[in-house]
C-alpha cells in the first residue's frame, strides 16, 4: 500500500459537498410534498371511487413500484423531452420523477392508514352530524396521519437517500459533488470518507426529528 490519504482537495472543494447536501434536502422536500399530495388524493379517490378508478390507481402503483427508480429518472429526463419536443432542466425533471415515485409509495401508505381508522370514530362523526367533508377534515385525516407516521418517516428517509440518483442526470447534489471532486482530483477514498458520514448524519438527524414527532402524536391505546 503506497497510498497516502490527503484530504486537502476535499476541504478545498467542500462547498460543492455542503451545497450539494442542501440541494439533496431540497429535492427530497419538494419531491415528498408533491408526492404526498398525489398520494393523498389518490388514496382518497381509491377508497371512494368505483372500479375503473381503482384499477387505474392500482396500475399506476404497480407500474412505479416494479420499475427501478434509476430507469424512471432516465425515462423522464431523456424520454419525455425527445417525445414531447420540449426540454426542461435536470433538477425539475428529477423533482417530477421523485414526486411520481413517492406518490406511488405514499398512496399505499395512506390507503392502509385510511383502512385502519376505527369504524366507530367515523360513526361517531356521523352521529354528531358532521358533513362528509367535515368528517374527512376533522376525523379521518387527523387519525390517518397519526396512524401512518412511522411508515411515513421510513418513506421520507428512503426518498432522501434516493436523491443520490439525481447525480446520474447531472443535478449538482451531494453524490454529484462527490463524483465531481473525484473526477477532478482522483481522491476517491477521501471524498467518500467524507460524503458517507454526511449522508449518515443527515439521515439520522431526520430520523430523530421524525421519531420525536411520532412519540408526540402516536395514538396510545389504553
Amino acid at each position: 500500500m503506497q497510498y497516502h490519504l490527503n484530504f486537502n482537495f476535499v476541504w478545498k472543494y467542500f462547498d460543492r459537498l455542503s451545497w450539494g447536501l442542501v440541494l439533496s434536502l431540497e429535492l427530497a422536500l419538494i419531491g415528498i410534498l408533491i408526492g404526498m399530495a398525489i398520494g393523498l388524493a389518490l388514496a382518497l379517490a381509491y377508497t371512494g371511487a368505483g372500479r375503473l378508478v381503482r384499477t387505474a390507481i392500482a396500475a399506476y402503483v404497480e407500474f412505479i413500484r416494479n420499475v427501478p427508480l434509476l430507469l424512471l429518472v432516465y425515462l423522464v429526463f431523456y424520454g419525455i423531452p425527445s417525445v414531447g419536443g420540449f426540454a426542461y432542466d435536470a433538477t425539475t425533471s428529477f423533482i417530477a420523477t421523485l414526486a411520481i415515485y413517492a406518490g406511488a409509495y405514499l398512496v399505499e401508505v395512506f390507503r392502509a392508514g385510511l383502512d385502519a381508522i376505527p369504524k366507530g370514530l367515523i360513526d361517531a362523526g356521523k352521529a354528531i352530524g358532521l358533513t362528509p367533508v367535515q368528517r374527512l377534515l376533522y376525523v379521518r385525516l387527523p387519525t390517518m396521519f397519526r396512524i401512518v407516521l412511522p411508515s411515513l418517516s421510513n418513506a421520507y428517509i428512503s426518498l432522501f437517500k434516493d436523491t443520490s440518483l439525481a447525480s446520474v442526470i447531472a443535478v449538482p447534489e451531494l453524490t454529484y459533488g462527490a463524483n465531481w471532486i473525484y473526477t477532478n482530483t482522483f481522491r476517491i477514498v477521501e471524498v467518500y470518507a467524507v460524503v458517507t458520514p454526511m449522508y449518515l448524519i443527515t439521515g439520522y438527524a431526520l430520523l430523530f426529528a421524525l421519531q420525536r414527532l411520532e412519540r408526540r402524536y402516536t395514538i396510545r391505546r389504553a
Partner: protein
Amino acid sequence: MEVAIKSLPFLWNGLLVTLHVSALVVVIALVLGVVMGVGLTYGPRLVYWPIRLYSDCLRGIPLLVLIFSSTTHCR
C-alpha cells in the same frame, strides 16, 4: 422501433445479468441476514452492537454512494 428490435439480444443479455446478480445477492443476503438476525435477537452485547452498527450504517447510506465508493476502493 427498429433500433429497439435490433438491440433486443443485447437487452436480453442484460436481463440475464440482472437475474444472475439478483439470484446471487438474494442467496448471500439471506444467509447473512438470518445469521445476523439471530445474532441481534439472541446474541450477547458483544455480538449485538457490531451487527447493529453494521446494519444501521449501511441502511443510512444511499446504494449509489456505496457502489461508487466500493468499486474504486477495491482497485
